């Protein structure tokens, strides 16, 4: 519970609200109190002035009974606690509470302290010093007091009574005390409503936060956790799908991307592993089994020779010899698996090679009632090729086509012509370097079967790798990180991190920065750094212009290849022939064509047929 993200967010928000509302309430109440106190102060001193002036004439006339009556009447007003007039000695001369008259006040009492704190009593006092707030008892309501000195005036000493000598400055003090209970109650109410408001705010905010966190954090996180569990348990096909457009949504998309990449990598690894482990297994099996097999085969063939005169025994021994020989062939078959060949190129005529390939398979085609039509251009230039490998290509293509016939034969048409192709969209980048000379080619990640160009990419805070399409101008790049469309990407060398951005140039199409990669001996290729940016420029190639290729098309009237298989047919071990095929035929063809700097692609329509198109460069000098 405590570790839940929703609890953490709600808890911290609550603490923040308490602090904010607390501070707000504190200052608000203090401000209110100050306003009220100053209002009371003003009001009380005004009242005190009013009392003073209303008793003035009575005082001058020394009419004590009038003074007493006025003070008593005023003292009866609600809220006024006490009104008293003290003389210079501290004796209460008049008071609203008549029992207090005649009492002597200590000069150290709260009412007198402000003037009599020092030896010589002060004669003048500021307004703020004349007021005081005190409690009569610790549990009684607060009281506000204001003193108003009564100064000696000419009319006092000129008066007939001559009570006050002329030298005297202050004749006495009018002290008014007012009860503050109403104000205190108001302040208390304000405080309570503040607390109620704070509690309500905390509750509402907590609820809203809980819903928000639950919808936008808890749920997606739960899905993410579920996905990681699925992947951990080996289900690499699991995808989270669309979550939100926020960071967690980006994480989910990135996660899906990662699992997809991992699944692909695992598949590739699995395929290459299959070959390697089969080789190791074959070697191990061959060595371990061949010695005991030798024992069986030699002894049984020895016995067979000696048992010539015993037909029964002979027959049994023949079975042993025969079966042991069969085992020997199986082991040998394993060892023969996986052989490689290096092309040996010579100038040759493609027409002759096709004719020869056709003659090899002629017999086989006749048996399966497949006709072979040849439309071979008569005067094609010679090309630098490995004639034997190329013949293998055509033999395999024709045999494959004959196997693809649905029922009762069909026809295969093989045609050649000379075509001219521009480098843009056709030229393959076979070598690429960063400015410091690091090789950028990555044979492990292939795009349409060709080694790609690996670059470090940075965009919008995420960092990873991009594999560029090695075909100049094709732009079928593989993005290892999620990048928004049209976003600019910082590209650098994956080995030395040197930037591959050319700061002096701008993309002529969109004005974005331009990356460059060095092609040893063939200048450099420049391209637009935005995702989806189509612009690429290879100066040297463009200057060379269009190139001549020989196009060889093999079209059959077979069953066709389902679209989902079209991308896989050149992959090793992919076969639709079940146990009959190794799944290596087309991948070998692909390898041979690639070694010759050519390209092969396939188009197919179900129940109509399949067309394989091969392009072989006429001048092969620059593909090495």
């Amino acid at each position, binding site marked *: 519970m405590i570790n839940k993200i929703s609890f953490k967010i709600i808890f911290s928000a609550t603490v923040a609200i308490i602090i904010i509302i607390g501070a707000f309430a504190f200052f608000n109440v203090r401000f209110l109190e100050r306003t009220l106190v100053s209002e009371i102060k003003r009001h009380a001193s005004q009242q005190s002035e009013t009392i003073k002036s209303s008793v003035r004439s009575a005082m001058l006339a020394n009419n004590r009974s009038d003074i007493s009556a006025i003070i008593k009447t005023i003292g009866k007003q609600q809220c006024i606690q006490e009104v008293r007039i003290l003389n210079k000695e501290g004796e209460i001369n008049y008071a609203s509470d008549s029992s207090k008259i005649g009492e002597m006040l200590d000069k150290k009492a709260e009412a007198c302290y402000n003037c009599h704190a020092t030896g010589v009593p002060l004669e003048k006092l500021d307004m703020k010093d004349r007021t005081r707030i005190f409690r009569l008892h610790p549990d009684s309501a607060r009281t506000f007091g204001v003193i108003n000195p009564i100064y000696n005036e000419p009319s006092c000493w000129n008066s007939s009574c001559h009570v006050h000598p002329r030298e005297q400055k202050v004749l006495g003090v009018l002290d008014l005390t007012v009860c503050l209970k109403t104000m205190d109650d108001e302040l208390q109410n304000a405080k309570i409503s503040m607390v109620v408001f704070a509690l309500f705010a905390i509750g509402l905010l907590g609820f809203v936060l809980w819903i928000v966190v639950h919808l936008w954090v808890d749920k997606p996180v739960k899905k993410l956790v579920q996905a990681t569990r699925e992947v951990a348990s080996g289900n690499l096909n699991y995808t989270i799908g669309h979550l939100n457009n926020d960071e967690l949504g980006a994480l989910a998309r990135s996660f899906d991307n990662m699992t997809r990449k991992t699944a692909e990598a695992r598949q590739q690894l699995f395929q290459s592993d299959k070959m390697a482990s089969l080789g190791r297994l074959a070697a191990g099996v*061959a*060595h371990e089994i*061949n010695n005991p097999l*030798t024992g069986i085969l030699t002894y049984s063939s020895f016995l067979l020779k000696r048992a010539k005169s015993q037909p029964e025994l002979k027959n049994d021994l023949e079975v042993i010899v025969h079966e042991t020989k069969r085992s020997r062939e199986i082991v040998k078959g394993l060892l023969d698996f996986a052989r490689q*060949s290096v092309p040996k190129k010579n100038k040759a005529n493609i027409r002759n090679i096709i004719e*020869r390939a056709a003659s090899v398979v002629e017999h086989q085609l006749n048996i399966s009632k497949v006709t072979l039509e040849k439309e071979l251009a008569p005067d094609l230039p010679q090309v630098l090729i490995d004639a034997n490998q190329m013949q293998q290509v055509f033999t395999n293509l024709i045999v494959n086509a004959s196997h693809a016939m649905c029922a009762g034969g069909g026809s295969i048409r093989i045609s050649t012509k000379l075509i001219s192709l521009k480098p843009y969209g056709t030229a393959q980048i076979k070598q690429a370097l960063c400015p410091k000379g690091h090789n950028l080619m990555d044979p492990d990640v292939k795009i349409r079967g060709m080694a790609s160009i690996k670059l470090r990419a940075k965009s919008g805070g995420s960092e990873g790798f991009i594999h560029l399409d090695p075909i100049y101008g094709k732009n079928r790049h593989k993005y290892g990180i999620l990048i928004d469309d049209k976003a600019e990407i910082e590209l650098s060398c994956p080995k030395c991190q040197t930037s591959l951005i050319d700061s002096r140039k701008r993309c002529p199409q969109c004005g974005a920065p331009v990356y460059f990669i060095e092609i040893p001996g063939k200048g450099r290729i420049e391209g637009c750094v935005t995702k989806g940016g189509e612009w690429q420029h290879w100066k040297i190639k463009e200057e060379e212009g269009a190139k001549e290729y020989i196009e060889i098309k093999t079209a059959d009237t077979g069953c066709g290849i389902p679209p989902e298989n079209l991308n896989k047919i050149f992959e090793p071990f992919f076969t639709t022939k079940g146990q009959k095929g190794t799944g290596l035929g087309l991948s070998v063809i692909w390898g041979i064509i690639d070694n010759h700097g050519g390209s092969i692609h396939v188009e197919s329509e179900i129940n109509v047929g399949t067309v394989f198109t091969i392009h072989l460069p006429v001048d092969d000098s620059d593909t090495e």
Partner: protein
Amino acid sequence: MKDVVHILAIDDEQVILDSIVKLCSLENWQVDTAIDTESGLEKLSNKTYQLIISDIMMPGMDGFGLLEYLREKEISVPVIITTGFSTVENAVKALYTGAVDFLPKPFTLEELLSSVSRALQYSTIRDRQKAAMLKNDTETLLYIPCPAKYRRLGYGGWAFLEADGSVKIGLTDLFLRTIQSTIKHIDLLSADNEIVQGNSCFQIETDDELTHSLLAPLSGRILKVNEQILADITLIEKDPYFNGWFYTIVPANLEFELKYLIPCSSENL
């Protein structure tokens, strides 16, 4: 001919040694056995053998080491190399380094006997030819060597590179002469089959019920089979280097495999 044939068999598996002893006893060949190359060489220093049959993979000195040793010491005893790890590389390397034959395990009685009999015959012919040459006797020619432009794997199969990139494959006269009995039947592969350098590519059955296999000098796909020799077996003997060819093949890995072929212009056998 020598009265008794002495053979030295070297193999780290006792059962192989026992079976060689047993099989050779049928032909009255005397077989001494050694469990490793070192003890084999010790026996070799005490006695003269007409033939050594040796495994490749053994603790200590291996089969190739033995071939090297014999060449350095100029001991001209023929060696048949046999191994359970019968890869193309091993076969070709063995023949290139001087073995007279490569016999992949597991082998049958017939295969062993035919290989041994050919190897014995080969050394007899070779010794007599040498003796004749020492006497400056240029008239005596015990076999017709293959034409200078041809290349051979060991002394058995030849290969000739045609101008169009295909390769003709056939059998040397020397190989035919090591077969002492008349040819009864030959087993050819049909066109479109793959043959692999160092692996058997055709068999010759003889009257003495032995089967002699020829190791293919190069790998490739068979383009054409010489139908003429099927019609007339004697053509092989009459014209082994021209009309007596066996297959025309499309080589699969010419550049690499050529390294292991010995030019027929070479004096060495």
